[in-house]
């Protein structure tokens, strides 16, 4: 509207004045002399006139008359705006059209975004015609890749990503060497490239090439629900109980309840309902399900589509989770015979993915070994070397005093968490925590709770029976889920019979999280923290077996078993092996390059930089690709290789590391190669991005409604072969209006004052 009014008054659009320089064509001295003479004559005339006029009247009338004379004088000066204008048909214009799937979204009057291209840029379209009259057009289609097009009928709108920066770079390179007036980008701006846009714009800015952006689509949808984010672990143990947060956003469905479900390759394994809040307000849904089947499993998270949704493809997200079926090793060191050993063993006995080896001190220098894997395991007592201890993923310390360990063993336990990435758990007893003399030891640094230095001074024994309740974090944490739903789990915790505590711990460390507390006292019952590469847990309870044996517990109640299985699984979750492999993403597009990263450590988990590391990639059709991985030199023990995933399907990536002929270890991961749905997420038009591109390059942003001036604008703004052009300003309607206003004003004033 503003531009239209401006153009009506000043003959040209603001862009012309922005780009041009003001000049006067007539000899200014003559015009000035004529104006001065006319002015002098005016002043003299009004100076002599008396009649019934007052001095004020004569002053006002003289000023109006002088104004009118000035307007006429300005016109007589023949003012012009001097522009640099591209020479028609001697310059090129690159037209880049978004060829991605988001162009199929029908969000403007139920019309697909691509209709703009089809109607106005295809041969015969008005915009195409206007551009062709001035420029030689070169077309590009861009999505994942950028392709030079013979014409726009080659567009398919099936691209799965929008790589805007890459498209600009490619078009710029392609048109280097020709007189280029600018680049026109027709897109919704839903750029979902991994890299930043800034670097792509630099060479274009340096070359002075303006980029004109034409934004398609709506900045906000009226009605849409989107599953914005789902965060899952990349690998879990079979049977793991997963708690996954899914973030749902929406517009237009405030107050409605939607169902979010998770499917394990088609089988629904979890469902949760959520009431939607205000428009754009994210709502987090906590989904609970079990990874029951081993192998690479594709879990699909889905929000049921609602009537009237503009985009339904963004209601679904996939996550590839490797469900492993090996047994994680946990060492439970118990310093005195007590029932925790018996009941913990029973709790995890049927869990095929947990192997808990128990070292039980039964008397001075006398140990009982239970559930060891080899006859020689732990035969010398608690491990004395890192290599021996680091064979385990988790370590549980029961009623064992700090003085039992040598200083090096205490350091080793701390390193087990910090360096090896293992999980440490300390149980309550008179020989653990502060009461066991751990304050001031390296183990105390690792623990998530603050130990009272006076704890081991032999003061009066602390003993309290407590009922347990969950904290806010504990209500939702994976390790403390002991029932089917979050609510049931919280209720179940509050129903459990009391346990007893002899370690008065009331404070967790700043980085730690309390999951369970005592209902009446202010005692910590369960807390954890991440420490270095691993994590630690404090469970100052001496008789969790009460949750199995207590008279209030039903015979078939599985709470105790569930608690320990989930707790120990969580303790060892994510604990790395000597050799690990990971991929930056669990899904890539066909033909995309994939980077494999591996880390290799020795038995002490010291990084090895000279290992022979081989990545074997098994393609969906069974073919093999072997890649020798090279040390990156960026981090100790880190190796890298790349491969191209040409076809859709699941790829297995197996990495083996050798030291000489000896196998250090191996690891496997999986990759899904499939077209991405990224185009459908956050697929509204990105005005800010398009503005930025235009502003940083000297171009402009248009909408389908304002794009009519594109051809004119490029003509004046663009580079290439140009000529200097003068455009008259004397005949601007604004001047005529001003002159008319002044003359009428003088007449009106006379009438008003009775001077005519």
């Amino acid at each position, binding site marked *: 509207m503003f531009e239209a009014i401006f153009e009506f008054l000043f003959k040209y659009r603001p862009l012309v004045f922005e780009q041009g320089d003001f000049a006067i064509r007539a000899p200014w001295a003559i015009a000035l002399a004529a104006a001065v003479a006319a002015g002098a004559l005016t002043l003299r005339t009004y100076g002599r006139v008396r009649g019934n006029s007052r001095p004020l009247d004569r002053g006002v009338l003289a000023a109006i008359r002088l104004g009118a004379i000035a307007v006429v004088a300005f016109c007589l000066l023949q003012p012009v705006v001097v522009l640099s204008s591209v020479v028609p048909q001697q310059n090129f214009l690159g037209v880049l059209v978004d060829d991605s799937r988001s162009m199929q979204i029908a969000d403007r009057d139920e019309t697909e975004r691509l209709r703009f291209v089809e109607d106005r840029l295809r041969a015969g379209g008005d915009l195409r015609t206007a551009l062709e009259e001035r420029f030689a057009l070169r077309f590009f289609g861009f999505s994942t890749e950028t392709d030079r097009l013979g014409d726009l009928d080659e567009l398919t709108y099936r691209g799965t990503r929008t790589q805007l920066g890459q498209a600009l770079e490619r078009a710029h390179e392609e048109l280097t060497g020709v007189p280029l007036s600018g680049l026109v980008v027709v897109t919704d701006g839903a750029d979902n490239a991994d890299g930043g846009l800034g670097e792509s714009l630099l060479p274009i800015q340096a070359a002075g090439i303006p980029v004109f952006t034409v934004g398609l689509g709506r900045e906000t949808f009226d009605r849409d629900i989107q599953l914005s984010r789902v965060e899952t672990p990349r690998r879990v143990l079979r049977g793991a109980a997963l708690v996954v947060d899914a973030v749902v956003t929406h517009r237009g469905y405030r107050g409605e309840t939607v169902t979010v479900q998770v499917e394990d390759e088609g089988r629904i394994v979890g469902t949760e309902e959520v009431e939607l809040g205000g428009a754009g307000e994210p709502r987090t849904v906590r989904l609970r399900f079990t990874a029951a089947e081993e192998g690479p499993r594709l879990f699909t998270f889905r929000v049921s589509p609602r009537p009237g949704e503009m985009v339904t493809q963004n209601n679904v997200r996939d996550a590839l989770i490797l469900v492993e079926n090996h047994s994680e090793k946990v060492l439970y060191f118990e310093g005195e015979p*007590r029932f925790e050993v018996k009941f913990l063993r*029973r709790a995890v006995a049927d869990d095929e993915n947990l192997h808990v080896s128990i070292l039980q001190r039964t008397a001075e220098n006398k140990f*009982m070994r239970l559930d060891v894997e080899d006859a020689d395991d732990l035969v010398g007592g608690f491990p004395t070397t890192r290599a021996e201890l680091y064979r385990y993923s988790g370590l549980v310390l029961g009623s064992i005093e700090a003085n039992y360990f040598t200083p090096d063993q205490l350091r080793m336990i701390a390193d087990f968490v910090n360096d090896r990435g293992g999980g440490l758990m300390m149980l309550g007893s008179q020989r653990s925590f502060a009461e066991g003399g751990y304050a001031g030891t390296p183990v105390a640094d690792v623990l998530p709770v603050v130990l009272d230095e006076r704890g081991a001074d032999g003061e009066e024994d602390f003993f309290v029976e407590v009922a347990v309740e969950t904290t806010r974090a504990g209500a939702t944490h994976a390790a403390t889920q002991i029932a089917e739903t979050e609510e049931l789990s919280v209720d179940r915790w509050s129903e459990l019979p009391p346990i007893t505590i002899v370690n008065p711990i009331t404070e967790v460390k700043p980085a730690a999280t309390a999951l369970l507390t005592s209902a009446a006292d202010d005692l910590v019952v369960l807390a954890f923290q991440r420490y270095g590469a691993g994590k630690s847990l404090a469970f100052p309870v001496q008789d969790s077996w009460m949750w199995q*044996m207590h008279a209030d517990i039903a015979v078939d109640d599985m709470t105790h078993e569930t608690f320990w299985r989930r707790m120990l699984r969580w303790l060892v979750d994510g604990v790395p092996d000597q050799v690990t492999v990971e991929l930056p993403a669990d899904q890539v597009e066909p033909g995309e390059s994939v980077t494999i990263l591996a880390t290799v450590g020795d038995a002490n988990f010291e990084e090895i930089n000279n290992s022979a590391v081989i990545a074997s990639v098994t393609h969906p059709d069974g073919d093999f690709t072997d890649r020798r991985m090279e040390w990156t030199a960026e981090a100790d023990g880190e190796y890298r290789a790349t491969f191209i995933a040409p076809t859709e399907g699941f790829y297995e990536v197996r990495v083996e590391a050798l030291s000489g002929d000896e196998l250090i270890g191996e690891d496997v991961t999986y990759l899904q190669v499939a077209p991405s749905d990224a185009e459908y997420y956050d697929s509204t038009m990105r005005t800010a991005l398009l503005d930025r591109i235009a502003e940083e390059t000297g171009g402009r942003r248009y909408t389908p409604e304002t794009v009519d001036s594109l051809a004119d604008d490029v003509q004046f703004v663009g580079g290439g072969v140009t000529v200097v052009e003068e455009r008259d300003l004397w005949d601007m309607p604004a001047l005529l209006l001003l002159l008319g206003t002044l003359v009428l004003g003088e007449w009106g004033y006379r009438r008003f004052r009775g001077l005519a």
Partner: protein
Amino acid sequence: MPVSTGRRLGRRWAAVVAGAAALGALAATAGLAVADVAPCNTAYTGQLVFVRLRYDAAQGRRCGPFPQFITWAHDYPRAERNLTRILESVTYIDPFQGPYGGNVLALDDPELHKFPIAYMSEPGHWYPSEAEVLGLRRYVEKGGFLIFDDFWGAHWENFEAQMRRVLPDARLLPVELAHPVFQSFFEIESLEMEPMYYGLPVEFHGVFEDNDPAGRLIAIANYNNDIGEYWEYSDTGWVPIDLSNEAYKFGVNYLMYAMTH
């Protein structure tokens, strides 16, 4: 089912000591009644507490000529008092040690579930009510461990019958020397013990989880035996030390096994 093989008198000490032991036991337990025993129980503090199961030896089946002789209380409390002393001195177990050695609880007492090991004397005279049967069944199914002691000969029939009521699907099977219960602390080299009752051979029977002899032992029965008696008189000089030691080994091993399996 083990069968009584005769009434041969025990060897050397048995004839001499039997009368005195009976008198001693009588003296130790004389006048004991339920009301007298229960108040002596200690509250749960996390310590191991030796629990003796109390039952009603009804139907006039008293063991012995004296009406105040209570079968479940044979060897009480000296047996547990001595055993807990031994436990404390030779192992890292920190048992409750009081004047009565431990707690006395009924089979259907909810408190029983706070103490996962329980000892029963004279199961030959044990006639539990339905509530007691149910209580003990729940106790065992949740993880409680039972030690039966001090019964012989025809007592077996009643013991087996009552166990069938408590655990209908369970079978009483011999416990072999190779079983971990006999190596859980002391390495017991032989199951042959000096006959306690009239020359009847000592036998060890047990109930295994899922009736699998290789599985977890959930109850053990010292048949034709009375190791509690050895514990009781171990500090009197009436019993040879080596026999008392053997009895303690079994007791310590039972407890150690039950705390870890």
